[in-house]
């Protein structure tokens, strides 16, 4: 009796009981089920939802690993900076080190564990109550959540937010595939509006910056974007640092290089929509160009509080903040995005466009990507509606030509 037949017998034992979905979730994690086709096609392609979701998770892993090291690196860099030492980032010199890893793992891994633990418990409970299988959607959400929050977010806040996000963002609509808003961003939005002091400002982005505030050991926890919004910048950071990600920010969103790698994986495997990714970037660049034009035309002076971010060369908007992370991993969520190919172009463009607009015009909280995506989530069905109407009108026209 191997594991396979033992599990099969257990499955038959649980069949029809309340616990069946919980057992099947674990069983199907180990084994592709023995289900065969009935009615319809007799053969099926190799892909299932687990495989699709798994690809997204694999595309996120580099960002997570980088985020762990970066959490430690930023912590020590900020301590150095408080002493007046400006660090020069070097990958093997002072980035991939045990010290960084220990601090990073100590702060980031609990976020991952809480996110998955709480989220999956909610998923299992709902699956058992409603009697459907445990769906894979949360595997990706649970990975995204730790990557889009500040390192020092208290774990209980994260737990509350995850429960809210999964229940209100997804389960009340009927589970994976039925939700209107991106669940990971719903969680982030909840955190942002419920606990704003932990989600924005100049303290939260570096480990221990909050605890040390006001003491002699105070360190800065500011992000680049926050600095720009106040018409200043951060010391010792050049464009390459921004691109490689040696800057403070949410856990997983800083390394543009690894996000591009993730995008390459998603596009190559055809799991993520390249249309959304490309059009989001085009939208962001377009808005950036418009603002540059406004500055060049002299409509806005250096005294303006918008000057700092408006004056950022348009292409730099892509390497600061989380626009790239949002475009690659968040906007491409197929459930909450537009579902037609034409709609995806419009949807992505507007996300990029609005993201940069919010970034520039909202100095209190200069990252607008998640709000832009949530806004467009709401409008995605409207975009689709008009795209589909195009097809419907074509059909109507054909009929009229015939009858005329």
């Amino acid at each position, binding site marked *: 009796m191997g594991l396979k037949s033992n599990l099969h017998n257990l499955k038959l034992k649980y069949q029809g009981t309340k616990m069946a979905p919980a057992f099947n979730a674990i069983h199907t994690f180990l084994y592709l*089920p023995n289900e065969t086709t009935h009615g*319809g*096609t007799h*053969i099926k392609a190799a*892909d299932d939802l687990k495989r699709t979701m798994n690809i997204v998770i694999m595309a996120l892993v580099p960002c997570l690993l980088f985020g762990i090291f970066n959490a430690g690196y930023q912590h020590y860099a900020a301590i150095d900076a408080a002493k007046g030492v400006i660090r020069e980032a070097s990958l093997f010199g002072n980035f991939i080190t045990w010290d960084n890893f220990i601090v990073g793992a100590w702060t980031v891994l609990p976020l991952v564990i809480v996110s998955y633990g709480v989220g999956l418990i909610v998923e299992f409970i709902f699956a058992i109550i409603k009697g459907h299988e445990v769906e894979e959607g949360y595997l990706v959400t649970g990975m995204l959540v730790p990557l889009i929050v500040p390192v020092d977010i208290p774990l209980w806040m994260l737990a509350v937010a995850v429960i809210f996000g999964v229940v209100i963002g997804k389960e009340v609509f009927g589970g994976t595939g039925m939700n209107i808003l991106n669940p990971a961003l719903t969680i982030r939005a909840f955190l942002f509006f419920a606990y704003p002091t932990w989600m924005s400002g100049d303290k939260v982005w570096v480990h221990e910056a909050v605890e040390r505030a006001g003491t002699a050991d105070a360190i800065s926890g500011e992000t680049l974007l926050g600095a720009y919004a106040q018409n200043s910048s951060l010391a010792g950071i050049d464009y390459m640092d921004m691109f490689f990600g040696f800057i403070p920010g949410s856990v997983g969103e800083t390394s543009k290089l690894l996000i591009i790698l993730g995008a390459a994986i998603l596009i190559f495997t055809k799991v993520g929509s390249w249309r959304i990714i490309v059009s989001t970037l085009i939208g962001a660049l377009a808005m950036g160009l418009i603002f540059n034009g406004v500055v060049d035309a002299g409509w806005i002076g250096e005294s303006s509080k918008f000057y700092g971010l408006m004056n950022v060369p348009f292409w730099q908007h892509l390497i600061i903040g989380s626009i790239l992370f949002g475009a690659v991993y968040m906007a491409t969520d*197929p459930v909450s995005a537009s579902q037609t190919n034409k709609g995806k172009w419009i949807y992505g463009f507007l996300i990029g466009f609005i993201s940069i607009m919010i970034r520039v015009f909202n100095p209190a909280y200069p990252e607008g990507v998640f709000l832009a995506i949530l806004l467009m989530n709401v409008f995605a069905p409207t975009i689709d509606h008009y795209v*589909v109407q195009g*097809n419907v009108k074509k059909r109507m026209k054909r009929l009229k030509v015939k009858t005329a």
Partner: protein
Amino acid sequence: MSNDIKISKGLDIKLVGQAEKKTDTAIISNFYTVRPEDFHLVTPKLVVKVGNKVKAGSTLFYNKENESVKFASPVSGEVVEIERGEKRRVLAIKIKADKTQEFEEFGALAASADADAVKSRLLESGAWAFVKQRPYDVIANPEVQPKSIFVSAYASAPLAADLDYTLAGKEEELQAAVSALAKLTAGKVHVSVGKNSNSPLSNLSDITLHKVSGPHPSGNVGTQINKIDPINKGETVWTVSAQDLVIIGELLLTGKFNAERIIAFAGSSVKSPRYFKTKIGAEVSTMVYDNGVEQDGNDRIISGNVLSGKQVKPDGCLDYYSNIITVIPEGDDYEFFGWNKPIFNKISTSRALTFSWLMPNKKFDLNTNTNGEHRAFVTTGNYEEVFPLDIFPLQILKACKYQDLDEMEALGMYEVAPEDFALTEFICVSKQPHQNIIREGLDLMYKEIG
């Protein structure tokens, strides 16, 4: 005049077990079975009883809703069993065949016969069952004149019988059939053949010839209708499959309903895949065990192709419309970490650690495993890659699921048949039953709109 149709969206599913081009005569089947469920939405009204003698072409039953549409026995013999299900619904009519076949004599029909004569001949002989209509993908209503008639003589489905081969030498019958059908429509008879094929249909007269190329579903008549002359609301199009034209043609020429057809016997479980000459309703056991599949093999026998065919038991029969029997292994086994390990031996349109894109010419040995569990619709944009019709597939499927008749109509429900959604069902990540969803949607529309 020849018009080319080139399809770019689609997917050729290459499978092991293509039938070799040689024809065996199947062991003569003792019993033949006609299953009314082959004729969708037909309520059978029986005219035979157990013990009755019938000839080939004798009416077994007619459609209760439209009594002129009759259904014929494929052979002469004695009705031995009428199998009934719930509410005494007729499931199957089993006929024990005579040693020497007798045919109902309908008399040859002159080539100059008018439309009414052709129509009544097809109706009284039961050959009308081969004429299907869209919308709804059901047997055509003889009272409605179609705007055009479509015949696809190009088979692009996986392992499909090569129609150039099975119909070779039948030019005379085919010509008689299309000439007669041409009288029944005010429009044209559109015949599609493969671009590089040597089809016996390409030199017929009274037709408009189209040459199609591209991946499956380029050979589906639904694809061709959509590209040539799409159906609008209120219009009707008839479709006849090419192999059934032979039966119609022979009926018109000789006055006999001869249900003989050459079918492919294919699939990876078959030792020696080849063609058989057999008759509609024949027991599949007469074919599958002779140098075919193992007696106790764990296989699925399909009357039809792997995408749209019907599962039959070894004692089942060839259905009324199929020209292929496919046998593939059952996939009722677990696969350790089957959802995340790299996969080389299954087809996929993605590259999500699936590597079929590296081997475009490899022939795959697929089984009936679903490769995953049923989920809600999640991914988007992948159906469009294999769906050549100018219709939004995901949106129309969802409209069917929430039964919004207006939306179904606006999105093009009149143009589709379940088989058009076979490929999207094959690649569906959420393992949704697309063909059933469309069938139920069509049935609902038929009931509500008619």
